[in-house]
């Protein structure tokens, strides 16, 4: 099995602010970020890591049907840093940090995973397919790439409405192979839509290596075909991610159109809780990427800047661990949505055939037996 070495990834032009030890590289432009924001960024990345670990544990205990971690990719989520509340986010399934940054808390997160009666999406989708219209973060879809032209439509609508809001969409490098990627990028270029495309290039699409997704030199270079700038950035370098995103968001707000950002990162673990990467990937590979861990690098940077302390980190990690414990108990105890809600939201109002079907279902024996619900 071939091994994917971070050194070869680095060989192309790659924007960096921090080196692997968290030191600012010579000549790098450090984005202006307040101390408070730096701490919030660190806290969010740490939160993702704490949540991911706990969720995978309860998944392994059989309490949760499915989960997707993003170990090692947390910094890429924070491309949302320059966004305002009126900017919209179109995520894929692997950007928990974007949700947390936006204020989507542990409580909603857990209720969605359990698809219970308090789930903001009413138990309609698999775990990790959140939706939060009050935060302008759009419902996640499993078919990959579908959100890309949608984000462009929202951005075009923003422009047409005369606001300077922008839309940002995330997806993996595998998703750049879809037709939706192309039509979305192309529409954005032609419409000069204020939209930022963030490719999380984590090297793998389930078992398929990024080299089998594209023969292009990089994913960023695909921007050329759409007449927009493409930026290739170290996705494990929080400051480089923010710098690139700042630039793209500014461009979009100024009416200069879309930007493609490739965040080069690495999927340290399996694709999801259902995956076993040892079948298809050299088990030594992830360890090659550990020196680039984004949380370690940011911690080192904060240490150098005298912002970090062990106590602070423990405090954050304890806080989220406690929250998880608290809301997990609630989420587990909460029953699934009432059976009659099965028919809501297909349309704004129930047409006759759904009324008939609802009546029929409510008459069925098993709907009257609440214990059967989670069988």
């Amino acid at each position, binding site marked *: 099995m071939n091994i994917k070495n971070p050194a070869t990834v680095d060989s192309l032009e790659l924007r960096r602010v921090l080196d692997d030890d968290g030191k600012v590289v010579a000549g790098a432009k450090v984005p202006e970020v307040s101390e408070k924001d730096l701490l919030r960024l660190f806290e969010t990345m740490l939160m993702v890591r704490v949540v991911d670990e706990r969720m995978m544990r309860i998944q392994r205990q059989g309490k949760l049907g499915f989960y997707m971690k993003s170990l090692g990719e947390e910094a890429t989520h924070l491309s949302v840093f320059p966004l305002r509340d009126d900017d919209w986010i179109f995520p894929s399934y692997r950007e928990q940090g974007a949700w947390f940054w936006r204020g989507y808390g542990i409580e909603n997160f857990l209720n969605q995973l359990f698809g219970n009666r308090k789930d903001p*999406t009413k138990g309609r989708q698999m775990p990790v397919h959140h939706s939060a219209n009050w935060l302008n973060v*759009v*419902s996640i879809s499993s078919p990959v790439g579908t959100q890309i032209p949608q984000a462009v*439509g*929202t951005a*075009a609508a923003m422009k*047409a*409405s005369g606001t300077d809001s922008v839309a940002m969409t995330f997806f993996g490098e595998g998703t750049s192979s879809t037709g*939706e990627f192309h039509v979305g990028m192309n*529409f954005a270029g032609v419409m000069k839509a204020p939209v930022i495309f963030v490719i999380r290039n984590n090297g793998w699409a389930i078992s398929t290596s990024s080299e089998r997704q594209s023969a292009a030199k990089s994913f960023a270079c695909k921007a050329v075909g759409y007449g927009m700038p493409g930026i290739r950035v170290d996705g494990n370098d929080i400051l480089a991610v923010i710098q690139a995103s700042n630039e793209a968001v500014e461009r979009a707000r100024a009416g200069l159109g879309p930007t493609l950002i490739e965040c080069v990162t690495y999927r340290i673990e399996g694709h999801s809780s259902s995956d076993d990467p040892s079948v298809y990937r050299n088990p030594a590979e992830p360890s090659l990427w550990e020196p680039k861990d984004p949380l370690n690098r940011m911690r080192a940077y904060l240490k150098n800047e005298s912002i970090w302390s062990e106590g602070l980190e423990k405090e954050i990690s304890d806080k989220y661990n406690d929250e998880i414990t608290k809301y997990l108990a609630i989420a587990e105890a909460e029953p699934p949505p009432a059976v009659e809600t099965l028919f809501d939201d297909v349309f704004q109002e129930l047409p006759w055939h759904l009324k008939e079907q609802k009546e029929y279902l409510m008459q069925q024996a098993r709907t009257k037996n609440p214990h059967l619900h989670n069988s």
Partner: protein
Amino acid sequence: MPTMNIIQAVNSALRIQMTNEPKAIILGEDVGKFGGVFRATAGLFDEFGEDRVIDTPLAEAGIIGAAIGMAIYGMRPIPEIQFSDFIFPAFDQIVNELAKFRYRSGGQYPCPVVIRTPVGGGIRGGHYHSQSPEALFIHTPGLKVVLPSNPYDAKGLLLACLKQDDPVLFMEPKKIYRASRGEVPEGEYTVEIGKAKVVSEGEQVTLIAYGAMVDIIKDAAKKAAEIGISCEVIDLRTLLPFDIETITESVTKTGRAVVVHEAPKTCGFGAELASSLYERCLASLEAPIERVCGFDTPFPYSLEHEYMPNADRVLGAIRKTLEW
């Protein structure tokens, strides 16, 4: 009242919506300066400007994807798919995204997109300018499907669709785009979604169709009348939710039914109509419900007229129900 054809009626509905609803936005291939290959959007580009009547790149998935993004942001997009044969590149955006957006988000993101697209055969377009894919969308929970048969209904139904908040596939019978003419009010009015129209009453056999096939069943009813058979003619108008009450009532009365559509027979909408009717009217039925449909072949070119249902075939089916 002015006389209009279906194209003009559609154009009039669009103009009214664009005037009254600042969030309305039209997008599609060649809908701008050109006014669409069938000219349904003619004049709107000049009247409302290129920001509200948008010529898109050639990608149906982009048209529908962008329309979804506009709709969830609060706009009222009206995308056009140039021929319904070219809707398939957008199939995923329609069935997996548009149709499910409200549901999957727990009601957070309604998606009021009204897709307009010409449908059906009869213009010597071969299998790529003639298909009738309505059954695929009727089978997709979350979409309303509408298909008018005349200018009055076309305008009234389109305006009704544009006023409500569910995604709609609004199909237009291109064979009779210009041939079907009638009086249409200049101003605003709506025709209720989900209501069929009893075009003419009759006693012995119920004929059910929609779109361009309504003219065919009207013809067949006339021919039947000439030989003393009394048919009730029903124009379904809305395919989902279809008007089960009106057709049940009619078939309960007549005891016989013929369902007509251009789409291939197998797994076509006729199967649903027939099954639903059997479930409700079995005791009243005097004969099996006949389906007069397109054949289960791709839509042909040279043999188009052999392929499409015609009044004679419908008459044959009427006779069959009476002779059973």
